[in-house]
């Protein structure tokens, strides 16, 4: 059963008044408050059990940039991503997203600015219906029922899943679940989207649809992936992470052409 895929472009800031902070976000459903920038400085992170996961990272991403995060398993990609929405806090160093430094005071706004799409959509779809799951974020932001309704509709439309609104997550195919998982974070109107292995488990058609979807998004994208073809097709810039540090940061085509680099860091 092939779902209709719609190309929809969300244009942040188009024809709506600029909003200050997301208290007024319900007035402008398509305008994220932040500028979509990421600035990480001297980031160190050690897990409670002592494992040093991140050993000094520096990173700067401009608003709207599309960046692939490459690296072998255990390199620290997931750990890094969990810093972007404040689930992990640095042991040393700072993390700024959308102009906000990630801290206890800003965490609410950080979570609204950074949408994290997990690898296993089943971890993200924990409500009885698709609608409920997509409404979860806006509901917890304290929006009015009308605003919530609008956000959910727009988010589902953006991923081409409006017709799935009343379905239970269990009954969806993996491709459908991944799309709905994206909708759950789009509904919060973030300026930055972070994906963990989005193409894992998809068949070639699903992958193609994913690429089209990613290309239609205007938010800043940080995507962790093993799928080098996906990186080449969709992301002009790549960052290679290995053993807790950034070992390469530059044009995707150059990095993927550097065979030694790829082999040295478990990418080929």
């Amino acid at each position: 059963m092939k779902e209709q895929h719609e190309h929809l472009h969300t244009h942040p800031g188009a024809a709506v008044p600029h909003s200050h902070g997301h208290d007024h976000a319900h007035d402008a459903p398509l305008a994220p408050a932040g500028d979509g920038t990421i600035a990480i400085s001297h980031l160190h992170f050690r897990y409670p059990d002592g494992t040093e996961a991140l050993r000094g990272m520096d990173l700067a991403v401009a608003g709207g940039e599309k960046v692939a995060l490459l690296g072998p398993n255990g390199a620290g990609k997931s750990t890094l991503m969990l810093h972007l929405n404040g689930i992990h806090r640095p042991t040393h160093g700072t993390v700024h997203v959308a102009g906000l430094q990630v801290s206890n005071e800003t965490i609410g706004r950080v979570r609204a600015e950074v949408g994290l799409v997990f690898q296993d959509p089943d971890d993200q779809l924990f409500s009885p219906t698709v609608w409920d799951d997509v409404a979860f974020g806006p509901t917890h932001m304290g929006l009015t029922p009308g605003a919530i309704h609008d956000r959910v509709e727009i988010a589902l439309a953006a991923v081409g899943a409006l017709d799935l609104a009343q379905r239970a997550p269990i009954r969806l195919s993996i491709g459908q679940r991944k799309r709905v998982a994206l909708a759950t974070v789009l509904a919060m109107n973030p300026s930055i989207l972070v994906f963990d292995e989005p193409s894992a488990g998809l068949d070639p058609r699903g992958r193609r649809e994913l690429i089209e979807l990613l290309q239609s998004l205007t938010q800043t994208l940080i995507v962790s992936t093993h799928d080098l073809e996906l990186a080449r097709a969709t992301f002009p810039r790549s960052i290679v992470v290995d053993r807790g540090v950034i070992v390469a940061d530059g044009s995707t085509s150059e990095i993927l052409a550097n065979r030694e680099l790829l082999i040295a860091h478990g990418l080929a």
Partner: protein
Amino acid sequence: MIVEPRGVGRDARAAVIATLAFVIAVALLPPGSYLALLLAWMLLAFAGALLGISPTRLARRGLVALPFIVAAIPIVFLRNDELLWAGSVGPLNLQVSGAGLRIALTALLKAWISVQASVLLLALASAPSIVTALRRMRLPDVIATSAGLTIRYLELLRDEARRMLRARTARSASPLGVGREQIGGTIAWRARTTGSLVGSLFLRAYSRAQRIEEAAASRGATGSLSIGTMPTADSRLTLKVVGVLLLVLIITLCGALLPRL
């Protein structure tokens, strides 16, 4: 694209109340009210038909309750009143008590009917909407949220368990020629492998719970957690409840008026 207006899903309170009231009415029928039970079942079968379930299919679903008759068999043979038959079969002195038979049969029929009522409830309202209805009827948040998540992840975890069981079966060979005691290992060994399976499943469940927490936190959840939107209230709820109470009255009156065996 038409999306449902706010208040998606349906208010399942009427369905829940109706089912409970029906089951209570049936439970209150005195032993031997076979005619009243038949009437109650016909009402159920009619409701089932309206929902697209044939009477035979519904009746078959009710058979799930059958095994429990074992509990009631002793009173058939051990009660001393209304002996229908007493005699000896071989060395045993047996008796069949009419009173016991009546109680056992009534219990079985009530169980059979109540299971079908439960089946119809599920046909009428999805499990999550039932939980939401209960939440509306003051079921504590902790229970409602936890139950909702259990329902959501039930199949997922059972699938994982099935896969692990299949893996265990695939490695449970019994080569020919080996003595009986050696097949399958000692009880302790078998318990240990089963325990490892259960333990691994727990660890997987625990990690998944952590990831769900992270996903929920990523979407802004702090403090009290409420999953699932509340559907719009059923405007005809009072009407339906009154209808249900009338039905209960009818069944109970039948229990009183119809002749009993």
